[in-house]
């Protein structure tokens, strides 16, 4: 089984829309915070729109579905992709670049006493301190240690690394939006049969609560793979195919398994449409699962991955530096 990537060689981007619906009933719970509520806004046609899942959150979800947390490893078809794992002093797994919020830029990797990865990055990206950033070189380094971050996008916000200018935008971005929404308000009481008037701050007592669900005739997940950006990395056809295949696989797996976004937001796919390029056929999950291991192997043979593929960093809190307030607004998410 093979996938014909040739039709994608000239296409600038791949746009996919998945028409979703609640798995049971008509209500769903959108993203939101207790004191902010849901993100509802107007569309230009006057219909009320609702953000069901933001681009940042979707990026994380697209990675979570690739990770086998029990085995603490990639799921089978993605095994042997490079990544950086963080272990604690006892050598127990702590986190890794697939799940860590800022990927390779995680403080557990770059801010600890173990500076091995930081030094390595500094060495490999040494000549970028002045002049424009060489995107291709940066991409090659990211591919080597944390291939997935090429799709996720990365921002190495450390002044010692080319003055904090090393960044790659997202290649795979996605969000979910619902159209023409209506509020479904409900509520209830947490009952305390022993002492209904107990101290609620300590978890006793009856606590009335309200909740806002929504209904919508149309919920759409939008996916965008920037193929021109993948080609712009200049890493050769095998890498291009691997990254495209990986992106497609993430989407497939998310739509198959990752649509339980919250307790009360379990969605299923009604229809999947490839909007651009329309002539291409979205490969099935089984096809991608067959092809991906061989693509990984092919790229490995080109010596583009770090060996061993898993780079291990030991996390031990580094000495507190006297530092200026860090520009938090620049953090990626």
């Amino acid at each position: 089984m093979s996938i014909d990537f040739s039709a994608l060689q000239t296409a600038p981007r791949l746009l996919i829309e998945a028409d979703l619906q609640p798995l049971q009933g008509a209500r769903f719970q959108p993203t939101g915070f207790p004191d902010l509520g849901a993100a509802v806004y107007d569309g230009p046609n006057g219909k009320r729109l609702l953000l069901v899942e933001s681009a940042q959150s979707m990026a994380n979800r697209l990675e979570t579905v690739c990770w086998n947390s029990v085995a603490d490893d990639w799921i089978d078809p993605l095994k042997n992709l490079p990544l950086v794992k963080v272990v604690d002093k006892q050598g127990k797994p702590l986190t890794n670049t697939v799940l860590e919020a800022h990927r390779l830029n995680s403080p557990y990797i770059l801010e600890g006493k173990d500076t091995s990865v930081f030094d390595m990055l500094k060495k490999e990206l040494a000549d970028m301190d002045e002049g424009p950033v060489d995107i291709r070189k940066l991409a090659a380094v990211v591919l080597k240690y944390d291939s997935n971050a090429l799709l996720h996008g990365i921002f190495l916000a450390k002044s010692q690394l080319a003055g904090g200018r090393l960044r790659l935008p997202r290649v795979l971005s996605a969000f979910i939006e619902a159209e023409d929404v209506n509020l479904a308000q409900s509520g209830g009481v947490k009952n305390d049969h022993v002492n209904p008037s107990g101290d609620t701050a300590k978890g006793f007592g009856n606590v009335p609560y309200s909740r806002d669900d929504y209904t919508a005739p149309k919920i759409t997940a939008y996916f965008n793979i920037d193929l021109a950006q993948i080609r712009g990395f200049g890493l050769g056809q095998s890498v291009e195919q691997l990254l495209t295949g990986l992106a497609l696989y993430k989407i497939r797996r998310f739509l198959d398994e990752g649509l339980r976004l919250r307790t009360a937001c379990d969605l299923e796919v009604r229809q999947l449409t490839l909007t651009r390029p329309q002539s291409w056929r979205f490969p099935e999950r089984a096809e991608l699962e067959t092809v991906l291991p061989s693509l990984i192997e092919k790229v490995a043979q080109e010596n583009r991955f770090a060996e061993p593929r898993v780079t291990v960093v030991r996390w031990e809190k580094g000495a507190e530096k006297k530092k200026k307030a860090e520009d938090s607004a620049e953090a990626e998410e």
Partner: protein
Amino acid sequence: MLTLSLSFPGGRYHATPWGRHVNEADVAWPPDGWRICRALLAVWHRKIDPQRYPKELLERLLSALASEAPHYRLTAAVHAHTRHYMPVRQKSTLIFDAFARIDADQEVIVRWPNLELDDEQTELLDSLLEALGYLGRAESWVEAKRLADWNGELNCRPGESSVDTETGEILGEPVLLYCPLSQDGYAAFRAHFLQGLAARTLKAKERKPIESTLPENWLDALGLDTADLQAAGWSAPPAAQKLLYQRPIESLRPNAASRPRARQILFADTVRYAVYGKPLPRIEDAVRFGEWLRRAAMGQAKHLLGENSIPALLSGHGLSAGNCHQHAFFIPDPNREGQIAHAIVHIPGSFDADTRRILENLTKIKNRDGQEWRLLLEHIGERSIFGEQVPLLKDAAVWQSVTPYLHPWHRKKSFGIEAQIRRECRERGLPELDWLQSIDEVSLEGRCLRPIDFHRFRRKRGLVQPDTHGSLWQLRFSKPVSGVLALGFGNHFGLGLFEPLE
């Protein structure tokens, strides 16, 4: 002339204007020339083969784009935002994420009215546009292309605000947009600035970041990192100029204009009004009342649609010869005392939207002396749903005159009133008449009316009226007939009106 089309497949455009904090939740709308040029520059860096398209060519292209301020055709956009907490290590900060919500099918047009690119520049521009994945933030996916011929109207241009001299109304909304300085403009600004800088005594530590953000090369200046510019203390990029544009008022609205929900319009051919006024017109003046009612409807039609667009089925004018009785009936609907307490307008061919609007807006009628009666719309709909409540609209086989019947043809020996009634019924497609009988008078509560008691003439001059006396009848059809049943001369205005005989 160069025209670009920008559409946003994700339906969103995120861009924070220069000098504004992200939490001010402002959106730089429309996408300015500075942002477009920088996006193209970034695409060249990231995605384009520099062997095929060298840097010099890019510089020529961007400098051409910078030579003129673009004009825009803006689509409807709504200023929206989401809020979330950013999980930063020390504390969670509340972030506003503002964007313009745009219809994914709509396009924003950007036009350089006097710019002509050569073939090389055009080819590079097309490649850059094709590879452009987003404009502004990474979430604002964009699809950009060059349009060879577009001749729509632009609605956002550089310039001072204009005012309608007659009404004093402001015609545009001012907005400041950044555009790149031309190469010469930048060179002049840089020379002047550096001269000023040399005159000041600054420490090298302070001087260096400023100088490094004023590179000699224009393209390098265009591509400077925003963080570096901010670190050097620039409140605006040195290679950019601020231009005042006028965009359409409310082109970035805080919320979508409230629109009436699409109303389901049911079929309608009849409307009934209650008539208020003292005293109420009497049934003896039925034909007068019918004429007043028509006149009021015509006046309303003229007001709403203009003199030349009055629906033919309402006016009864300009209809084909075969269409004698499909146009409007203006019918008085009397109570038991013979007062016209209700009025009915019935068009057998049903109301079109315009007619419906006219009749819905009809609130009063006047007689020639200026006396007014208020009309209150009771119901508008299909004739059959008035059913049992309105006798004139019932289905019945036996009918009796409410107002006198005036035969429409001249009487002849073998063509008397009976024969004329039968012929009229035949021509109208009504069932066969089993039986008909002339009666002398109709009785109301406390009064009996003979034909002579009624007003029996139309105001319109030049009408042929073979019958001036009138007669009253009882009719029995072989099958039930649906009201309104009106026959003879002036039947569209209340003469020759029948009601079911209970």
